C-alpha cells in the first residue's frame, strides 16, 4: 500500500467507502438486533410479569365496606345507628413526599399527634395503594379547605363513611358497648379481607359479641384508575352485604327508670323476662358516653374514665362479683326442703347468734346489734326468709354441709357464667371443699360453711347471675341463659334453656311464700316497698359485707368510710302469681338492702304499670 497518495483517487475512495458501509450496516444490524432482543425480552420472556404489573397499575380492587347492622330496643327505638362522617385519608402510592404532604395537611386541618402516630403505624402495615385514614369526623369547614387545596395534594382523599352513633350513649353504655377504631392487635386477629375498608370493630358488649353478624360482608369493586388515582370507571362490582340488624329485649323506658333510680350511685340492675330469658334492663352505673370511643377517645377523656374511683368502664352487671348476702336464702331454703333437712314447720331457736358444736365462737345474726336478741324464740322457714334470719340458715348450712350446698345451689347458675350474650362476663364463686382445695390449696373449715349459708365468705355472684337465679325462683325451676338479643334480622332468637332446678311443688310454694312475706309480710325486710303497691311481689333483701368484721367488734356503719359500707342487694319477681319480670339490684356501699329495693320497686312499676317511678 503506498504511503503517500498525493492525488485524489476516486476509485479508492469509493472502495474505502464501500468497506465502511459494510461496517456500518453490520453495526446497524447488530444494534438493531440488540434492540430486538431487548424488546423480545420485555414482551415475550417477561410478558407475564409486565402484564400483571400493568393490570395492577390500572385496576384497583377497592373494598366496599358493609353497613353495620343497627340495634333496636324491643319497641323499635334505635339504640345504635350509622351516620355519615368524612374521613381524611392518604394513599401512600400517590404521594411523592409523605412528610411534606402531612405537613401541608396539618396546616389545613388540625391533626393531633396521636392521629399522626396511629396513621404512621397504619401506613407501615397497609399496601401502598390503600387509603389510610388520617383524621376522622371532618367538619364542613375542613372539608371545604381540603377541597380547595386538592390539586396540590395528590394522593389525599376525603371519603364519606358511615360512623357508629349511639343516640342514648350513656344509658346503654354497658348494655350495648361500643365500636372503636381497629387497633394494632385487632388488625392481626381480624380477617384481613373482611375488614378491608372497615376502620371500626365492636370493642365490648353486644357490639363485640355480635361483631360477626353486625359487621356484614365486605364488597368489592374493581375500578380502573388513571395514574393520578382517579377512578375512571367501575369494571365490576360485588355489593357488600349489610350487617344484621339486632332487636334487643331491652326496654328503653325500663332502662331509663333503672338508670335514673340508681341516681349516679355505683350499682347495677339486671331485669329478665322469666318466660323468655330476655334481658329487659341491664344497667351499670356510672355509665359513660360510648360515642367518645367511636373515633378513638382522647387521652384526657380516657384517663378520666380509667382513673375515676367509680370505675365507670367496669360493667358491674356482668363483671362485678359481690357476695350475694341474704339473697341466697330462698335458694338455701329450697335446698333445705329438698334435702329433707327441714320442713316448712321445722324451726330453730334463735338467740341472735349461733355456735358450732364444740366451738366457742359466736356467729351473730344481723338483728343482734339492732335488738340485742334474735328474731323470735323459734324461727321457721317462712320467717327466716321474710325477716332474713341468719341463725336459721347457719343451722341449715351446717347440717347441709358445704358440698351439698354446692350441689343444691349450682343449678340456680351460681358459680357459672350465665352465658349471656355480651362480653367480659365473670363466673363468680360458688365455694365447695374442692373449690377451696384447688383455688387456695387449703382445707375447708366448718365456720366457712356458716358464712356461705348466708351468702358471705367466699361466695361471689354477679348481678347477672342473681337475676338468672331469681328467674329460676320465679318460674319454679325453669330458667334460661339470658339473652340481650331477641331477633336477628327479624328472626327471633330463643334463649337456650339451662339445667332445671329440681324441686317439689310444695317446696317451691314454701319458698315463694317466704319471698312474698319479704315484701308483703308485716315484718318483711322489704315491707317498705309494699306501700301503695298495685301488684304482688316475691323478693329477698341482701346485705353484702365489704370487710370482714372482727369477733366481738361493734360494727358502726358511720365510722366506716363510705367505700367500706355494705353493699345493698335486692332480688325480686313480679307479679307474684305469674311473674313477667325477675330482677336483681345492687347498690355498692348502699349500706344495706334499703338502698336497693326502692330501685326494684320503680323498675317493676315501670314494667308492670307502665309508669316511671
Amino acid at each position, binding site marked *: 500500500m503506498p504511503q503517500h497518495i498525493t492525488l485524489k483517487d476516486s476509485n479508492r475512495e469509493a472502495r474505502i467507502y464501500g468497506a465502511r458501509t459494510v461496517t456500518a450496516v453490520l453495526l446497524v444490524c447488530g444494534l438493531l438486533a440488540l434492540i430486538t432482543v431487548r*424488546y423480545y425480552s420485555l414482551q415475550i420472556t417477561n410478558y407475564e410479569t409486565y402484564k400483571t*404489573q400493568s393490570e395492577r397499575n390500572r385496576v384497583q380492587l377497592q373494598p366496599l365496606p358493609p353497613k353495620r347492622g343497627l340495634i333496636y330496643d324491643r319497641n323499635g327505638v334505635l339504640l345504635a345507628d350509622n351516620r355519615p362522617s368524612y374521613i381524611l385519608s392518604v394513599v401512600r402510592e400517590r404521594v411523592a413526599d409523605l412528610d411534606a404532604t402531612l405537613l401541608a395537611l396539618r396546616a389545613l386541618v388540625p391533626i393531633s399527634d396521636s392521629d399522626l402516630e396511629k396513621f404512621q403505624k397504619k401506613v407501615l402495615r397497609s399496601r401502598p395503594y390503600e387509603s389510610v385514614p388520617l383524621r376522622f369526623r371532618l367538619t364542613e369547614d375542613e372539608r371545604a379547605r381540603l377541597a380547595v387545596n386538592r390539586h396540590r395534594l395528590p394522593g389525599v382523599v376525603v371519603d364519606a363513611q358511615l360512623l357508629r352513633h349511639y343516640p342514648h350513649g350513656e344509658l346503654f353504655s354497658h348494655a350495648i358497648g361500643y365500636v372503636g377504631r381497629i387497633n394494632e392487635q385487632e388488625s392481626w386477629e381480624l380477617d384481613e379481607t373482611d375488614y378491608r375498608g372497615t376502620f371500626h370493630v365492636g370493642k365490648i358488649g353486644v357490639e363485640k359479641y355480635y361483631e360477626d353478624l353486625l359487621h356484614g360482608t365486605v364488597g368489592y369493586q374493581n375500578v380502573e384508575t388513571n395514574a393520578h388515582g382517579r377512578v375512571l370507571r367501575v369494571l365490576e362490582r360485588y355489593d357488600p352485604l349489610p350487617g344484621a340488624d339486632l332487636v334487643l329485649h331491652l326496654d328503653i323506658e325500663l332502662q331509663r327508670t333503672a338508670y335514673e333510680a340508681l341516681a349516679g350511685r355505683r350499682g347495677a340492675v339486671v331485669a329478665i323476662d322469666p318466660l323468655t330469658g330476655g334481658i329487659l334492663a341491664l344497667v351499670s352505673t356510672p355509665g359513660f358516653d360510648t360515642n367518645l370511643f367511636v373515633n378513638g377517645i382522647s387521652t384526657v377523656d380516657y384517663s378520666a374514665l380509667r382513673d375515676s374511683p367509680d370505675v365507670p368502664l367496669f360493667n358491674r352487671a356482668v363483671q362485678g362479683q359481690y357476695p350475694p348476702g341474704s339473697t341466697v336464702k330462698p335458694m338455701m331454703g329450697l335446698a333445705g326442703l329438698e334435702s329433707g333437712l327441714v320442713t316448712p314447720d321445722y324451726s330453730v331457736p334463735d338467740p341472735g347468734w349461733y355456735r358450732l358444736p364444740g366451738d366457742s365462737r359466736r356467729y351473730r345474726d344481723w338483728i343482734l346489734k339492732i335488738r340485742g336478741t334474735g328474731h323470735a324464740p323459734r324461727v321457721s322457714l317462712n320467717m327466716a326468709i321474710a325477716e332474713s334470719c341468719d341463725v336459721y340458715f347457719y343451722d341449715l348450712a351446717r347440717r347441709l354441709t358445704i358440698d351439698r350446698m354446692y350441689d343444691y345451689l349450682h343449678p340456680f347458675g351460681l358459680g357459672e357464667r350465665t352465658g349471656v350474650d355480651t362480653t367480659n362476663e365473670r363466673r363468680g364463686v360458688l365455694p365447695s371443699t374442692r373449690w377451696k382445695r384447688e383455688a387456695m390449696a387449703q382445707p375447708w373449715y366448718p365456720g366457712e360453711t356458716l358464712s356461705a349459708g348466708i351468702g358471705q365468705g367466699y361466695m361471689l355472684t354477679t348481678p347477672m347471675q342473681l337475676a338468672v337465679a331469681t328467674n329460676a325462683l320465679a318460674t319454679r325451676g325453669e330458667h334460661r341463659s339470658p339473652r340481650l338479643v331477641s331477633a336477628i334480622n327479624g328472626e327471633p332468637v330463643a334463649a337456650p334453656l339451662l339445667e332445671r332446678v329440681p324441686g317439689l311443688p310444695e317446696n317451691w310454694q314454701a319458698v315463694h311464700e317466704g319471698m312474698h312475706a319479704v315484701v308483703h309480710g308485716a315484718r318483711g325486710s322489704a315491707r317498705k316497698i309494699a306501700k301503695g303497691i298495685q301488684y304482688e311481689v316475691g323478693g329477698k333483701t341482701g346485705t353484702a359485707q365489704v370487710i370482714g368484721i372482727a369477733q366481738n367488734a361493734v360494727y358502726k356503719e358511720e365510722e366506716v368510710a363510705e367505700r367500706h359500707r355494705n353493699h345493698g342487694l335486692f332480688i325480686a319477681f313480679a307479679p307474684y302469681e305469674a311473674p313477667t319480670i325477675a330482677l336483681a339490684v345492687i347498690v355498692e356501699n348502699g349500706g344495706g338492702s334499703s338502698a336497693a329495693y326502692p330501685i326494684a320497686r320503680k323498675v317493676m312499676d315501670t314494667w308492670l304499670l307502665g309508669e316511671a317511678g
Partner: protein
Amino acid sequence: MGDYVRQMPDGSADLARPPSAASRFHLDLPLLLLLLILTVYGLVVLYSASGQDMGAVIRQGRYFLVAYVVMITASQISLVRYMRWAPWFYLLGVGLLVAVMFFGVGAKGAQRWLSIGGFRFQPSEILKLVVPMTVAWYLAERILPPRFKYIIGSLAIIAVPSALILRQPDLGTALLIAASGMFVVFMAGIGWRYIVGAVVIAFASAWPVWLFVLKDYQKQRILTLLNPESDKLGAGWNIIQSKTAIGSGGWDGKGWLGGTQSQLDFLPESHTDFIIAVLAEEFGLRGVLMLMAIYLLILLRGFWIGLRAQTSYGRMLAGSLTLTFFVYIFVNMGMVAGLLPVVGVPLPLVSAGGTSVVTLMAGFGLLMAVSTEKKIVTH
C-alpha cells in the same frame, strides 16, 4: 467512465435507462414510499398516544406536509450548491447558537429556543444537517482517508456547535450533532487506530465527564437507568412505566387504542419521546418488528444511496445522514426500553413534534439530492 460503471454493476442498468419521472423530480421512489408508510404508521400510533386527539394528528399531519415540501425542495438543489453553502450555513448556525446563549428563551431550565417575530425555533436543529454538510465539505477536498490534521480540523468543526448546545444544556442534541459529524469522518475512511483510540479516550474520560461536565439531572438519568426501582415515583417512574407498557404488550399487543398504560396516563410523554412504548403496548412485538423493518429498509436504502453517490461529498453526507437517522432509532428505542439513559431524542418520524420531523425530512431531501446527483468529474 467505463471503469466507474463496472464498479457499480447494479447501477449500470439504471444508467442505461432514460431518466424516470421520479428522478427528473430528484425523488428516490423507494425511499419516498418507505417514508410515506412510516408517516401513516406514525400518525396511527399518534392518534392513540395523544389520547385519541384528532387535533394532535391533524397538527402532526400539517408538520408532515411542511416536512415533505421541505424534503422535496431540498432534493431539488444540487449537491454542489450544498457543498458551496456549507461553510456559510455553518457560520450562520454557530452564530444563532451564540445568539441563543444571549437572547434565547427556555423551558425546564434549558435555553434552547430563539424567538423571532413570535416564531420559536431551535437553531440546534439546523445544525443537525449543517454539521455533517460542513465536515463533508471540509473533507471532500482532501485526500481520503483524511490525514491526522484534517481529522483534528473536522473535530474542531464538530466541537464548536456541540459545545454550545451542550451548554444550553441539551445533551441529546449535542450527542446527535457530534455523532453526525463523526459519522462523516468515519465514512471518510479514518483509520481504525483513531477509532480505537477515540473509544479508549471516551472511556477514560468518562469519570471526569461525570464529575465536571454532566449536570445533576443528567447524572440522575444515568443512575435511574442503572436502578429504576431506587426512585419509583420520581425519575424511575418513566422507565418503569414504559417498560411495563412495552412488556405488557406481548406479541399481539392490546390492540389499537387499547393500551391501558398509555390511555390511562401511566406512561409519561406518551406521544413524544415515549411513543414507542404506546406502539409496543398496543401492537405488541409484531408492531415493533414491523416498525423496525421499515426503519431497516430506510437505512439500507440510505446506505445504498451513499454507495451509488457520484462524489465523496455525496457519499459522506449520505452515510452520515443515514447513520444519524439510525442513532435516533437506537437511542430512542433503547432509552424507552431501559437500555440507555433517558435523553431527549424522539423516535424519528413517529414522535409528535414539528421541528424534528422537518429536520429529518430535510435530511432525507439531502439524501435524495445525493441519489439523483449528476455525475460530476472532480478531477
